[in-house]
């Protein structure tokens, strides 16, 4: 589908400073191309269907709908786009929900750009990546993400 053989990326994050920064950083990698960016969870699926990225980097906490629900939609739509959840914090239940939704990976947003690029390549190649520190963070506790104000 892509003549360039590069990996096509979609970024979904509601924080402009994060999304723009990641887009700029990942675009510096010769084999990665950011083809779409969205700032709402309920716009992810449509953007994936329109731009056909190979990998979507998806934030969890976004307006409209959360990134895990968006992931489930993408997987269900069978467009062949792999999902890498990129989050600031692991909260109880996030990791499990992400994996159940069919995500290929779960990493922190502040992963150094080169490493993040490496994880994107691994996900594009069909592997799973889970950040161990984040896995430790998602050890349960008193905060129920659903009652988040």
């Amino acid at each position, binding site marked *: 589908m892509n003549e360039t053989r590069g990996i096509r990326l979609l970024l979904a994050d509601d*924080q402009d*400073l*994060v999304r723009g*920064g*990641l887009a*700029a*950083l990942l675009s*510096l990698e010769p084999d990665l191309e950011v083809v779409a960016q969205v700032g709402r969870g309920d716009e992810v699926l449509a953007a994936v269907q329109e731009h056909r990225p190979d990998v979507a980097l998806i934030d969890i906490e976004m307006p409209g709908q959360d990134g895990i629900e968006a992931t489930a939609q993408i997987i269900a739509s069978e467009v062949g786009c792999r999902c890498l959840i990129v989050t*600031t*914090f692991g909260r109880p239940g996030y990791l499990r929900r992400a994996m159940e939704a069919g995500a290929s990976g779960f990493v922190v*947003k*502040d992963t*150094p*750009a080169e490493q993040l690029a490496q994880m994107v390549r691994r996900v594009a190649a069909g592997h799973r990546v889970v950040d161990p520190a984040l896995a430790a963070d998602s050890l349960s*506790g*008193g*905060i129920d993400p659903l009652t*988040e*104000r």
Partner: protein
Amino acid sequence: TGMGVLFIVVIRLADNFEQRQLDAEEELRRAAERDAIARDVHDVLGHSLTVLSIRAQLARRLIDHDPAQAREEVDRIDSLARESLAQVRSTVNRLRTPRLVTELEAAREALTAAGITAEVIGDAAPDSRHAELFAWALRETVTNVVRHSQAGRCVIQVGPDQLRVQDDGVGLACAGGPEGHGLRGLRERAAVGGATLHLGPAADGAERPGTVVEVSLR
């Protein structure tokens, strides 16, 4: 004394039950409070620090190719770090348990330093449970007076069942901020402590109506 012993047993059992109830409630309240703090720290700082890290990585790449852009990124990092610092300070202040006497002293100092004449009426008499609530309320309201009111004078009245903080500044409407963590937190705390919070202009219809905040025990 057979009846007496029975009474004792029944009453102690009742006490015990009540106590266990209280323990459980207290435990839940503590857990909720800690969780709220955790959420605050998380929301406030997690995002800022993430942005700082990503933007620093970007600045690094830009230094060679586009120094002007790099300068902009670095400026952004600086102001973001400063904003976060202000947020840390206010979170930390909220975490500290205030004591009414020291809080009154601190309020007087802060107001004076801000060029606002402070007048304190009454003394710190309420019993310990309310003293803590009043201390919180005093801190939040005086912080607001210093930050938002542009007042020339602030009167603080402390009685056994009321705290009243009044200023002659621009008034709530004029300062124009939305209800922040300060007033929301105070309202919740007052409700938990069985008190009501009242906010309004100090002098109706005036050009500078000022603000009065009352925390009253029901």
